[in-house]
């Protein structure tokens, strides 16, 4: 009887959820428009990819977005259960010798920052790039040794990050040469306000290459949940306003080549589109 009630209740909730989802339309966001000095506020519909800025409605593709980030971008390695499982027994053998204890972090330096719609340069001599679909936590205030209960309040909002890398098997040494190439970190198109996202640990992430679905995962597969990750990182390292912490890359990240159109979608956040082109001086510098 109780089970039945519960089932009915769940069903009812689900029904309401569907209803509200249909109605739920616009989310508050901040974005950087190319050529404008300050971030602008807008209302975005992440399903139709449309933006409302001061009563004017645009399709996202009509706006030239700039990277909405000015701080440091920190990536997290092996934070998806599947990504760690894929290493299997190797974690107990040379050179790793034991499974990771603390979050494994790396930095995406400023030369990697790239914007929505711009080209990702394929470095000379490289033919395949790994597409790292990551939820980015944009920090809203100085976060030092935060606790799990209040961790989410340090987040200003969420964005999408394409943590591009040159494919590499070994994770023993810092992979600067693989992660830190020019233009290897498209970010955007916008920052969705924290309050618009009910649960950052339950977001579907999809990667499309040339409009074909190539990867699907969910932040529910994280080893460290979003609050837990913030606790374990800020225990030794202060995150400042404007910094971005990537929650990780799902296992079996797809690879792409020159000419491929990449789209990363995260439910409730939006979609980030870029194309891979041969490296030129211009696209390295991000001028086109």
């Amino acid at each position, binding site marked *: 009887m109780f089970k039945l009630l519960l089932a009915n209740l769940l069903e009812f909730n689900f029904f309401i959820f569907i209803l509200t989802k249909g109605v739920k339309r616009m989310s508050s966001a901040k974005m950087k428009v190319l050529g404008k000095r300050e971030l602008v506020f807008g209302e975005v519909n992440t399903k139709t990819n449309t933006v409302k800025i001061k009563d004017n409605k645009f399709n996202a593709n009509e706006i030239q977005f700039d990277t909405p980030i000015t701080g440091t971008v920190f990536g997290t390695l092996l934070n998806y259960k599947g990504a760690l499982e894929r290493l299997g027994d190797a974690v107990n053998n040379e050179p790793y010798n034991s499974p990771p204890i603390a979050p494994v972090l790396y930095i995406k330096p400023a030369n990697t920052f790239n914007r929505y719609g711009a080209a990702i340069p394929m470095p000379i001599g490289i033919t395949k790039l790994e597409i790292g679909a990551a939820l980015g936590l944009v920090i809203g205030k100085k976060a030092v040794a935060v606790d799990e209960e209040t961790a989410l309040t340090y987040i200003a909002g969420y964005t999408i990050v394409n943590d591009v890398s040159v494919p590499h098997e070994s994770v023993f040494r810092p992979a600067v040469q693989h992660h830190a190439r020019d233009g290897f970190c498209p970010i955007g198109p916008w920052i969705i306000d924290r309050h618009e996202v009910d649960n950052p640990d339950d977001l579907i992430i999809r990667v499309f290459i040339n409009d074909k679905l190539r990867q699907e995962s969910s932040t529910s597969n994280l080893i460290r949940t979003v609050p837990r990750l913030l606790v374990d990182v800020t225990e030794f*390292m202060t995150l400042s306003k404007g910094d971005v912490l990537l929650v990780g890359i799902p296992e079996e990240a797809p690879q792409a080549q020159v000419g491929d159109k990449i789209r990363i979608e995260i439910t409730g956040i939006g979609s980030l589109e870029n194309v891979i082109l041969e490296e030129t001086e211009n696209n390295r510098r991000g001028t086109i």
Partner: protein
Amino acid sequence: MRRARIAYGGAIHEAIEWEGFLKLEDGRIVEEHNVSWLTPIEPRTVFALGLNYADHAAELAFSAPSEPLVFLKGPNTFIGHQAYTRRPANVTYMHYECELAVIIGKTARSVKREDAYKYVKGYSVANDYAIRDYLENYYRPNLRVKNRDTCTPFGPWIVDMKDIADPMNLKLTTHVNNQLVQEGTTADMIFDIPSIIEYLSSFMTLSENDVILTGTPKGSVDTVVGDVVVTEVEGIGRLVNTIIGDDSFTNG
């Protein structure tokens, strides 16, 4: 010329060394002990080299790397001259690393080693502390070892590139409580400054105020709360740092 960034009289100033004093850009001359030293530049991307001195590599039981072992550091870790570095209570081995810091002066991409110094703005000193208790073998040396708050003193000033005739022949020393504990020379680097600039700029664009910490020679010993650690590079500067404990931090 030696240029510092300092806080004095409630404002941040650029200052130059002037006959043992500091001369602010507004003409005021102040005593060094009356200022708060900031990092000599606000670092953009910071590279650090691991195992770049053969003797230090041997000390850590590693053979010398065949290509530069590079890791990156974030802005949270940097502090200026005469500042304080935190040693967590429960660790057993925290050591200083005296390093020559190279500051990039302009955009650099695909630079050949013979042109490398044209892209250097100047030099400074860094103390790249490591807490070996936190070492793990994933992207080693991991950020928990190398990117902790307060764990990279940097300064006191930047010395102009043209003032240093040969940066590849400078003595490095570390003193803990006035006792010599580390001694080496930049002549023993495995990858010298031009090679490092050639290597990094071969795959990414370097920009003004990017910083390269060029590695440390052997001579690592544990340091404890209360230790005064002085890392010095001949002709560049003498960087003073004091180790403090968790009790100075209420969130500890």
